């Protein structure tokens, strides 16, 4: 089954000045049992966005206009570390986030994001910091991310090159069904199994 290709993302960006954002923060564990329905976006950063009584914390960035409508997060360093929960990606997407810019990402989150068409954009920390200041200073600031050219266009028009692993990029641009692609190598997989026996359960 092919996917929706991802080529270019343009939208309002929110400054999210937090480093070491673990996936427990992105979606607390108690929401992982919930189905992926229309409520899913409300779990995003739940305990940072809402107080104990369920009221919005006015100081949280996504609770402040115009950033409520953000499609891109400009974070800091080490976004999406810790637990492998892909629900962190689902929650970001359900809220409307389509790309996250940071210096580094947790390895598993980075992979999960690419599989789902959420773009993790890695840029040097100085660039990330400058972009965050730019989108915070002149709202509503928009960023454009071109996956084909691997280029992010800042509000001032400056272009910043980033890199996405070639295979993942190709899959995203083509809307490639990865399982289908792998199954096209079925003869090779079967040959491997014939020559190397794996103990069964």
């Amino acid at each position, binding site marked *: *089954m092919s996917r929706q290709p991802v080529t270019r993302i343009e939208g309002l960006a929110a400054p999210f000045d937090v*480093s*070491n954002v*673990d996936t*427990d*923060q992105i979606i*607390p*564990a*108690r929401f*992982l*049992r*919930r189905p*992926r329905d229309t409520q899913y976006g409300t779990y995003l950063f739940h*305990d940072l966005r809402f107080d*104990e009584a369920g009221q919005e914390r006015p100081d949280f960035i996504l609770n402040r206009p115009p950033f409520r409508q953000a499609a891109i997060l400009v974070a*800091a*360093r*080490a976004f999406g*570390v*810790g*637990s*492998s*929960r*892909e*629900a962190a*990606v689902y929650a970001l997407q359900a809220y409307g986030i389509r790309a996250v810019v940071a210096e*580094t990402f*947790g*390895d*598993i*989150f980075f*992979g*999960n994001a690419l*599989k*789902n068409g959420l773009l993790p954009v890695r840029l040097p920390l100085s660039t990330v910091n400058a972009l965050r200041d730019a989108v915070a200073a002149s709202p509503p600031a928009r960023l454009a991310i071109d996956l084909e050219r691997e280029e992010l266009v800042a509000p001032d028009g400056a272009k910043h090159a980033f890199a996405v*692993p*070639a*295979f993942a990029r*190709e899959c995203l641009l083509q809307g490639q069904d*990865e*399982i289908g692609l*792998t*199954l096209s*190598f079925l003869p*090779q*997989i079967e040959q*491997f*199994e014939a020559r*190397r026996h*794996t*103990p*069964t*359960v």
Partner: protein
Amino acid sequence: MSPRTLFEKIWASHVVQSRAEGIDLLYIDRHYCHEGSFHAFNALAAEGRPVRRPDLTFGVADHYAQTRPGPIAGRAAPPDPEMGRLIEIFDRNMAAHGIAAAGLGDPRQGIVHVVGPEQGLTLPGMTVVCGDSHTSTHGALGAIAFGIGASEVAHVLATQCLWQSRPAQMRVRFDGRTGAGVGAKDMALAMIAMVGANGAQGHAIEYAGEAVEALSVEGRLTLCNMSIEAGARCGLVAPDETTFAWLAGRPGAPAGAAWDAAMEGWRGLRSDPDARFAREVSLDAGALEPMLTWGTSPEQAAPVSGAAADPAALPDAERRHAAAQALDYMGLAPGARLEGLPVDRVFIGSCTNSRLGDLRAAAAILRGRRAKVPALVSPGSTQIKRAAEAEGLDRIFTEAGFEWRESGCSMCVGMNGDLVAAGERCASTSNRNFPGRQGRGARTHLMSPAMAAAAALAGRIVDVREYAA
């Protein structure tokens, strides 16, 4: 052939197909799933795909397992019916696809990263994956083992393979031997404090050195478990006589002639003497003290004689900010001494520290004494629970005032009802001290089972070396 690391040897023997983009189609020998894998089964169902090799996957119910005894397969009714529903869905998925599983009530049930090795289902030289970041645990047996997300779980179920780019190689050496009261958990926390919570990002860690060789397999499982807390893709230890002796006779391990044949391959599973590592880090095991975390990242750890950070003394703005936020969440003053810090609750369990050796280490401290604060122990597997009961450890725990629970992820994950209340300070043998990890507002201090036991007795953080009998 140029010298290769252990990791590179195992990787090379699992490449089905390489692509020009620097990515390999890697064969997966063992896949473990749990209740949280439901997104992947939903994805397969939506596309009408079968599970290609159900005989290479094993399922364990752990994340939502209730640890209180009761009428549902020996467990209490969950506080939220949705938790019970996920266990039912797990059972249904396992049955529908013909996947062998240890659900609730099965004598093999436990935490997936405890059960897999215990059942001999993880073996040296294997590639192992599971939709859980602590899959790195299994590397202790000399396997490439890493956590994956739901999309990759679906990919493995459908193909028994994964497209992967090869991580860089990093070696962490522990020279010398640890002293009394210092063990694998302290080694792991000291390593993470040194390299940072993202310090091993993009790397596979091989643990080596005298102190690693001296560790039991249980200790190596603890050490490899925490690899992800340094940001590593995985961690592994070269298999040796300790490994082989531990594996022999386990249900999934080969026997007879098959064992001899397997051993021939396993003996070659070590890094060549001249193998190149992109990074090398070494620690003096003899200088390590019992460690614990003071903040909200596993890298915010210090020796028990030490103190929480003083943000003003930190070199850069980012770390000052992170430390200040962590201190605020943890309710600690800058530079607060760790010894003497009152705790409200103690948890002994999780895939990090719940094995028989962990329970023995805690019981040795607790024997004949009483805890001053509420404390809970959840053995890593039902088998470990039975073995502990057979040697009387359960009585030591209960006489000390601990709750002796059934096996599951319990209070490590904050998703099954075992929770730390907001503002409570918990001495915990688990692996993550993230804000809210053990419950909203919970304050977690990670430490070894012996340290946690001593904290229970004192009602505060103490140096287990001064508290031992």
